[in-house]
């Protein structure tokens, strides 16, 4: 009787069906184990710092960072991607996750401001009003990505003010050559010199080479707020909550400040 091929086949099938997710260690009140943090891509450097400090504070914990546009992360979370914490670059994407009852009450933990990134030394754009110059190559983040929402608010404000002529927003939009997946992808196109300008956050410029900032005037700038919340579907809620508390706490806030983020008033 040749039974082993059947056994092998059944074993393979069982592994395929059941082994997709390894068993997790039993949850305990102590903060330990893997905590998966889905964070807006503009937080890349800052959250790497925070994660290292968190792991130092809680030995035995391991932070896994997942960076993408907040809108992509919100879709992932709504589709059941495993994550314990969601850090969004705007309220809209946090709301989307909240609507699906997947996140606890969010808290604002950082602020940022909009700037225009241009290749170092480029003279194609020197002021906000230059955005409407015909032939300028502008790259924006895709629709729904927080930095794009802020960009549209800024352009709409400038358009209403009328300081740069009629149809300013429409003329700027006519210069848009591409919609990138997230703010960092847009910045990369400027770093490569392919694009003349992109709307990014002030903190993005600080950590990037070969780009410099053109200021967005205060009158047309936008208060950008980052929100963080533990996710209800996470596998490690204890560590998730601890991570949120850590980001909001003294050390987390200091690390964010060092990367150029500003803090919400307490």
């Amino acid at each position, binding site marked *: 009787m040749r039974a082993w091929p059947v056994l092998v086949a059944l074993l393979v099938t069982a592994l395929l069906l059941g082994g997709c997710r390894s068993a997790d260690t039993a949850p305990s009140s102590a903060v330990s184990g893997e905590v998966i943090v889905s964070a807006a891509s503009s937080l890349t450097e800052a959250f790497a710092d925070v994660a290292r400090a968190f792991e130092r504070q809680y030995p035995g914990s391991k932070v896994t960072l997942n960076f993408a*546009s907040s809108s*992509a992360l919100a879709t992932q979370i709504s589709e059941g991607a495993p994550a314990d914490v969601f850090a969004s670059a705007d309220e809209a994407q946090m709301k989307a996750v909240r609507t699906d009852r997947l996140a606890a009450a969010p808290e604002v933990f950082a602020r940022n401001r909009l700037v225009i990134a241009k290749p170092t030394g480029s003279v194609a754009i020197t002021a906000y009003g230059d955005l409407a110059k015909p032939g300028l190559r502008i790259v924006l983040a895709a629709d729904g990505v927080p930095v794009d929402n802020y960009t549209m608010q800024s352009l709409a404000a400038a358009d209403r003010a009328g300081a740069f002529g009629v149809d300013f927003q429409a003329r700027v939009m006519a210069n848009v050559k591409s919609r990138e997946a997230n703010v960092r992808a847009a910045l990369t196109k400027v770093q490569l010199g392919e694009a003349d300008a992109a709307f990014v956050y002030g903190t993005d410029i600080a950590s990037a080479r070969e780009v410099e900032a053109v200021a967005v005037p205060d009158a047309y700038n936008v208060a950008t707020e980052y929100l963080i919340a533990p996710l209800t579907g996470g596998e490690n809620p204890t560590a998730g909550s601890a991570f949120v508390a850590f980001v909001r706490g003294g050390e987390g806030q200091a690390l964010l400040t060092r990367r150029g983020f500003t803090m919400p008033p307490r």
Partner: protein
Amino acid sequence: MILRRPSGITLAVAVLAITFALFFLLPFAGLVWRAVDDPRAREALGDPAVGMALRLSLVTTAVSVTLSLLFGTPVAYLLARRQIPGGAVLDALLDLPIVLPPTVAGVALLTAFGRRGLLGEPIEAVTGLSLPFTAVAVIVAQTFVAAPLYVRAARTGFEAVDPELEAIARTLGASRVHVFRRITVPLARGPLLAGAVLCWARALGELGATLIFAGSLTGRTQTLPLAVVAAFEGGPLGLPGAIALSLVLLGVALILLIALRLVAKRGLA
């Protein structure tokens, strides 16, 4: 031979085969199910953005395939008849885009044809024109990743044509071009068409190189696969849009595959 009850081997093979078949069937079933189940997905099918992406995909891939045939056919023939110096190098070079991840192709294209690229910078200095962010860049990316598939198939096809037949036709006074058109191509028709269809399918699915080299803008450079990504990552079409767009791509791919099967059958006949 007497029929017995199925042996362990037969059973094992059946289990493996069924598991494997389900693995490929379920994702497509899921896609169709979500499209049918979700009224927003059906609504998204009628969105003008879907039509724009489909049109752009069809136009750019048609040009890419035409370019692949135009430039690829002579190269494939020369490679098959080993008539060119450095043929082995060219052969290996043409395999690279097949093996490399398309994202690498995108970065490589930027370093060559980007605004600061080897060729892109002088071209822009002289003509003021630049490739990235244009439909031409989409075509360049598609041709770069897809043409090698055609060349490979065409080369195999040409190799199967007996050089004696070509030689005989030549001795009967036919010109080289005439022989190629009337003897070589008809004899290699099956592999040539199969290669063209494969090339088209690959161009249609192109994502990574296009995203990096051509960017993504609705109606300009956003082909169907790029539109799926944009919708999935939180664009206005959202997840229902991504499903609708995927369904459109699935439909086009199916049509191409059926065409391939028909071509293969006629090629054998």
